[in-house]
């Protein structure tokens, strides 16, 4: 395993940050009318994931899925268009929590814990067809208490499925602190099944990359699943609009301070390593421009056709009778 390229990681994280900010802004403009969960503060995990993933791998994500989709290489314009309720990835029917892409293979679900069984099934199908391929099942710290996740770990261990259970531990499930909801250490959750666990600093791409390394290697070589827990912090409320009164101000200030913010921290590190400031500024500017370009492109994607709102329930339209009267 080679090391992660930190300059590249910085560029990408800058894009991720801008991407999520743009989506947040679209909530304010009313282009998004539903619930919206952003991954700001969690970019280091996604960028390390990106460095591990092959285009043929699959990711099954959660209600906070955007950065994982980008990490896998899902078309950002189609993604953004879907988030903006246009005919994007899912034709405007899925929206932010229900993103689906066939190539690369990405999906997510709004039901906490429900990704894990789906990921096992994906891995099962691919295990023989395409050995060496990995399926990543993402979960939050809160989601790790859902029965579906435990059952999936047992199944994945038994069937040696090439699954990486990636837990983004941002310390909260909505307002509920990890220690209120979660007994023990999350990285130990796989141990009863013989699944190795790796805890890491989820604000440092290098640390996440190092933790993901053995997990991916194990999966690719057919030895079965792993658990990786990356500790981080969400910078926004649980959803856009959340008053977020439940997290202490001091805690927030601390995690979001420059020395801990994954982005500014990496920037400082690169600076210290001698990367010229202009180069980093250029990366920021490029990220800004890239996301602006995607946004413009996404905004030109047409809205879904209301006349086809009842299509896609079944393969054949009208397989179930419509509204009467």
């Amino acid at each position: 395993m080679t090391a992660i390229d930190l300059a590249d990681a910085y560029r990408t994280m800058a894009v991720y940050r801008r991407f999520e900010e743009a989506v947040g802004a679209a909530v304010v403009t009313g282009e998004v009318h539903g619930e919206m969960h952003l991954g700001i503060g969690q970019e280091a995990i996604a960028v390390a994931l990106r460095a591990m993933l092959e285009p043929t791998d699959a990711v099954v994500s959660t209600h906070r899925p955007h950065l994982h989709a980008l990490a896998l290489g899902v078309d950002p314009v189609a993604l953004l268009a879907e988030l903006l309720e246009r005919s994007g990835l899912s034709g405007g029917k899925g929206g932010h929590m229900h993103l689906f892409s066939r190539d690369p293979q990405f999906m997510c679900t709004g039901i906490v814990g429900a990704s894990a069984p789906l990921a096992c099934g994906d891995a099962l199908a691919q295990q023989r067809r395409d050995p060496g391929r990995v399926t990543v099942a993402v979960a939050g710290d809160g989601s790790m208490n859902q029965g579906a996740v435990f059952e999936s770990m047992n199944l994945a261990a038994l069937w040696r499925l090439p699954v990486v259970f990636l837990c983004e531990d941002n310390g909260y499930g909505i307002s509920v602190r990890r220690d209120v909801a979660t007994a023990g250490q999350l990285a130990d959750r796989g141990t009863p099944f013989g699944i190795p666990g790796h805890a890491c600093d989820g604000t440092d791409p290098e640390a996440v990359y190092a933790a993901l390394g053995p997990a991916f290697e194990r999966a690719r070589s057919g030895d079965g699943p792993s658990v990786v827990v990356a500790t981080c912090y969400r910078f926004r409320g649980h959803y856009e609009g959340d008053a977020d009164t439940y997290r202490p101000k001091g805690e927030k200030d601390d995690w979001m301070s420059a020395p801990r913010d994954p982005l500014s921290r990496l920037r400082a590190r690169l600076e210290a390593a001698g990367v010229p400031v202009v180069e980093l500024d250029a990366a920021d500017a490029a990220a800004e421009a890239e996301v602006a370009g995607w946004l413009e492109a996404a905004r030109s994607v047409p809205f879904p056709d209301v006349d086809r709102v009842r299509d896609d329930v079944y393969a054949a339209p009208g397989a179930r009778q419509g509204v009467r009267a």
Partner: protein
Amino acid sequence: MNAAGSDRRNGSQLVAETLHAEMDRDPSVIVLGEDVAELGGVFGATRRLRRTYGDERVLDTPISETAFVGAAIGAAQAGLRPVVELMFVDFLGVCFDQIMNQMAKARYMSGGAVTAPLVLRSAVGCIGAAAQHSQVLSATFAHIPGLKVAFPASPGDLRGLLLTAIRDDDPVIFLEHKWLLKTRVAELPFCEDLSEPADAVPFGELRRLRDGGDVTIVAAGFMVQLALTAAEALEAEGIRAGVVDVRTLVPLDREGLVREAAAADALLVVDDDYADYGMCGEVIATVAEALGRGAPRLARHALDVPIPANRALEEAVVPSAASIAAAARGLVSASAAQVPA
């Protein structure tokens, strides 16, 4: 028809106040669920309960619906009266065994020896969060014998039916429509006078909120409010539409429904739960079985697809005042005997 005056509270506040009063009255009432303690509920319906009643009676749970809904049942069987929150009803699928096989059947399977007096509160309906966070699923519960299902349509009933639910000796599913939780009571088409303390509202007694003539609209939950708006609009066109609020799907006031239907020329059932194998069919069948050739024209207007994300798509499938009015209009103008081709 709104008697709330300038009351600035919304439904979630009324729920919280009612829970407060009941916890005060009965020390065996406890409240548990995700985000109910520290946050006071994602809609605020359990606000300030922990401050008053402490950690012992107001419990934040892990995201483990099977464990904590099951624990509520076990605690109820052991003598407590838990009010357990299933944040969104869409999540029933992860804990439905505890609901359908344990909660609903404990009394029957024990020959009456064991009871499970608890309330499962859950937020239902579409406020724009697509297919997995917008469902109603009232019929999924109502189909299972042993559960009672209350679905309040107004602020007064949010209080009154909740009182009855908590005091009831059977498990009660209490469905709180998100629009009812979020909307200020003074801004609703219909609200009772809330100045007096709440009285318990008996289960199984529907109410007529508006007299009709040409068509009677039967609904539950927030659809009742929309039906009232629709009726208002129809009146301007010269169509007299009555509105009937079912209030509880179980027990269902079948006699009341038949009485209302017998007095109507046409009956439209409106539901933001799925159209098939649900409340629409149950209400229409109840009327048709009882009245035979004396039944009015019967029709339904309800959700028939998963809820899409895009706003315009959503509006095209979720019943609204406009779509209800259109459905009622269509029914009134339709001929009495309509056989499909």
